[in-house]
């Protein structure tokens, strides 16, 4: 493996910026890596070799012209639910299998403007619905640490690309844990900023009130760099927050002195088995070693997370996905009349999980059930925000498991409910719109596979969150202790 592909985004940007390395050299190395391993890993649905080379050339020109680019030459894997002009953008669905986006998502554009190089469009669970990346209609992505196992979902493609050294930054989207969970499975950092911090314009919607773009990276510093490039108000997204962004990359620290870190009483790890329980206990004590004080906090609503999420997210998706009707773009299956055309198109175009959620959501919003399901779920969601507000009166950050176990084998979770349970620890933060990340914290299972520690901060405290995660990462270095399978 060319050592260039192992470099972090920060190193690459620094070297390219100092003209000790060219964006084109890095890009060639990464493209070669993709050609070498991606037939086995399957991170990418679409490889963008030509575009990557052109972009690298352009970045080298910009650097030569004296431009300071915070992500100069950094190879980026873009989850394929984000639009990029002129490229196939599928959302992992047959219904958009051949759709070419005529415009670029704001977050993607900001990464490219900062000097990022688009390497490819990465695989995902169809319309970002899933926790293993097994729900993609267009390809299989494997965990780079064990090809027999899933990379996690729904951002499995970008997570596997970054974990397997096929990119330095992955752009993922997190609705109920879809960045943090594959981040943990692929032994990398998965960071979901505050809801509204990064524009959703150009992100194919799953559940609008929860969807959030964020970076998947091999280091916390890289996550901070990517975040700094993407975050900030976008007039094209009315839910994007118009409020100054505190730069995160500049404020990273190496200790946790003076920080109170809350551990959630209801997130009992004992029921996850002795090995995982011990792993998270060790992680919490590592936080104390760095100077943090651990306090117990309570999220009384914790057990309602899944039920709340699986009403709100499907309700929104049932409406968001209505536009895929065969009239204007994407797949069309002809019928005798327009109604039949809709039916045939959507029957053929959507996979089982997407259909399941559309049905749940349609039901939850239908007259007669709206108050019992949707309204109640919205009320529960308010409870989560209140619970967290209360908890943060007692602590600066919250630490929790990222997943309930290490990466599993394909088809291991055949019933939807056991799959939904994967997101038990990530969903509460999503419902409350909080910034949260997952950082490698050791290994579990046989063979030993990656696990992630989740850290979560109050709204808009991304800088504090990343600073603390950086301290933990620098003290532990779990990511580098396990070799990828290829």
């Amino acid at each position: 493996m060319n050592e260039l592909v192992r470099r972090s985004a920060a190193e690459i940007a620094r070297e390219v910026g100092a003209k000790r390395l060219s964006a084109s050299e890095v890009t060639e190395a990464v493209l070669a890596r993709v050609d070498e391993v991606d037939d086995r890993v399957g991170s990418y649905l679409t490889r963008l070799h030509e575009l990557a080379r052109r972009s690298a050339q352009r970045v080298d020109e910009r650097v030569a012209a004296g431009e300071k680019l915070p992500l100069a030459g950094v190879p980026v894997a873009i989850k394929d639910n984000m639009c990029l002009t002129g490229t196939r953008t599928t959302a992992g669905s047959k219904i958009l299998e051949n759709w070419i986006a005529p415009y670029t998502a704001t977050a993607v554009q900001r990464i490219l403007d900062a000097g990022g190089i688009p390497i490819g469009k990465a695989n995902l669970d169809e319309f970002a619905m899933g926790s293993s990346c097994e729900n993609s209609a267009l390809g299989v992505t494997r965990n780079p640490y064990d090809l027999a196992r899933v990379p996690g979902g729904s951002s499995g493609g970008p997570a596997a690309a970054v974990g397997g050294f096929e990119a330095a930054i992955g752009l993922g989207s997190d609705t109920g844990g879809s960045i943090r969970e594959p981040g943990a499975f692929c032994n990398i950092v998965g960071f979901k900023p505050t809801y509204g911090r990064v524009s959703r314009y150009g992100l194919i919607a799953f559940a609008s009130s929860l969807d959030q773009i964020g970076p998947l990276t091999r280091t916390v510093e890289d996550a901070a760099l990517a975040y700094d490039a993407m975050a900030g108000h976008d007039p094209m997204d009315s839910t994007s927050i118009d409020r100054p962004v505190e730069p995160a990359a500049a404020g990273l620290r190496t200790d946790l002195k003076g920080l109170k870190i809350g551990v959630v009483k209801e997130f009992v790890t004992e029921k996850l088995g002795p090995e995982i329980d011990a792993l998270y206990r060790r992680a919490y004590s590592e936080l104390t070693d760095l100077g943090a004080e651990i306090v117990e906090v309570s999220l009384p609503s914790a057990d309602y997370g899944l039920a709340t999420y699986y009403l709100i997210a499907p309700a929104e998706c049932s409406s968001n996905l209505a536009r895929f009707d065969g009239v204007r773009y994407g797949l069309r299956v002809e019928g005798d009349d327009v109604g039949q055309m809709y039916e045939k198109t959507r029957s053929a175009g959507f996979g089982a999980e997407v259909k399941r959620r559309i049905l749940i959501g349609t039901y939850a919003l239908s007259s007669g059930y709206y108050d019992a399901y949707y309204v109640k779920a919205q009320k529960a969601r308010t409870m989560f925000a209140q619970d967290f507000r209360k908890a943060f009166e007692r602590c600066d950050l919250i630490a929790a498991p990222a997943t309930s176990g290490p990466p599993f084998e394909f088809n291991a979770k055949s019933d939807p409910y056991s799959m939904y349970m994967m997101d038990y620890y990530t969903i509460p933060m999503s419902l409350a719109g909080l910034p949260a990340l997952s950082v490698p914290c050791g290994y579990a299972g046989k063979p030993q596979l990656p696990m992630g520690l989740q850290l979560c901060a109050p709204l808009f405290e991304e800088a504090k969150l990343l600073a603390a995660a950086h301290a933990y990462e620098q003290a532990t270095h779990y990511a580098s202790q396990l070799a990828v399978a290829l």
Partner: protein
Amino acid sequence: MIAPTKYEAVIGIECHVELTTRSKMFCGCANEFGGEPNTKVCPVCLALPGALPVANKAAIEHMIRAGLAFGAEIPAFSKFDRKNYFYPDMPKDYQISQYDMPLTLGGSVRYWLDDGTIKECRLTRIHLEEDTGKSMHAGGDGRIAGSAYSLIDFNRAGVPLMECVSEPDLRSAQEAVGYLEALKRTFVLLGVSDVKMEEGSLRCDANVSIRPVGSTALGTKTEIKNMNSFRSVLRAIDSEIARQTEILESGGRIVQETRGWDESQGVTHSMRSKEEAHDYRYFPDPDLVPIEIDAALIENLRKTIPPLPAQRFERYLSEYKLDPKQATQLIDNVPLAQYFDEAVAASGNAQQSTNFVLGDLSRLANETGVAVQASPVTPAQLAELIELVEAKTINSKIAKELLERMWAGEGSPKAMVEKDGLAQTSDAGEIGRFVAAVLAENPKAVADYKSGKTNILGFLTGQVMKASRGKANPALVNELLRKELD
């Protein structure tokens, strides 16, 4: 046989009016009628994957002004909801509309009937929503059934629409039309819509029921859909009242249903029954943040509301003693009415102002294609002319001539009268000389008169006027002629 007068109608109107804004409701595309199909579209109004709406501030301000004009309540908090149903013209397969928290609540519309009676109809609400595109069915007779294919023009998709919902306060088709005319006049006056019916910028549905006179209970209603001219509204409601009356008289029962209006047959026909009604699954649009309305904004907008048409109508009838038809004629041309008001203010003479504005000035406007208010004749000059007429300085014939010269840009009538010596003369000696000359030149006419053909007097008067170049006081001419002849 029961007399038809036994029943009274109860009518409520839902009326859609397109707002005049530069851009569409949720994107920056031009809000203009016409153009090549699908040229005024973007990712947002075509609902491309990932596109997001951003609300148009100008449209919201138009709504608030419309609400204020009708004395509606403007709640401090409003939101957009999604109305979900599949329709090929509608790009997202849901319409962004407002459900339980519209921008305006209540208020009432004062309107008048042809006989000058002023009436009032309460409003339930006015809410804001977006328009759909337009289908054209090709290869058949223009209907969807039998057409080979359909084409859709999305230029209108996303144009802001306000929906005005009235209370069932209207009692006849004439009242319904009076109410709609008042809406139209007010919207044009406020500049919130140009209400071009021929461009479909006003469309309405009517809920019609009948009940025995004196009853307060409501009968079963039917909804007549999609009428787009006042004439259709009048005919459709009358025909529906007749249909319902006939059913009740023959002992039948009215079925609650949606009915379409067939313009060519002059009848309404059943479209769908209540049982087939849609479940729109309204829920708050998670892509749009709630609208918070500042009290200061409301106060600023309140200052921009001019006196309303009904106020002006009442004033014209009570103060100026105009007849309802003249008043309506003026009010239907707002700039002309403003011109008229200025002329009355300057001349203090409403009757003469009405005569000139609706008479000679409107005629000149028609002949030249220049609007009265855009002509060189200022209200002040018109007042001067009226003063000359009233003071009997000039007679009506000279006034007419002067007005034509003023229209041509010759300026002040007083100056012209002085310069050209056009002042009417009442000098008996001077007129006597003209009379003597005319009688001497027309012995035959004199003989005719004396033999009893007294109507020849008109001819002789004309000759004297001509001889005086129009300046002679016609009454005096008449008097002197009689004196000489009798």
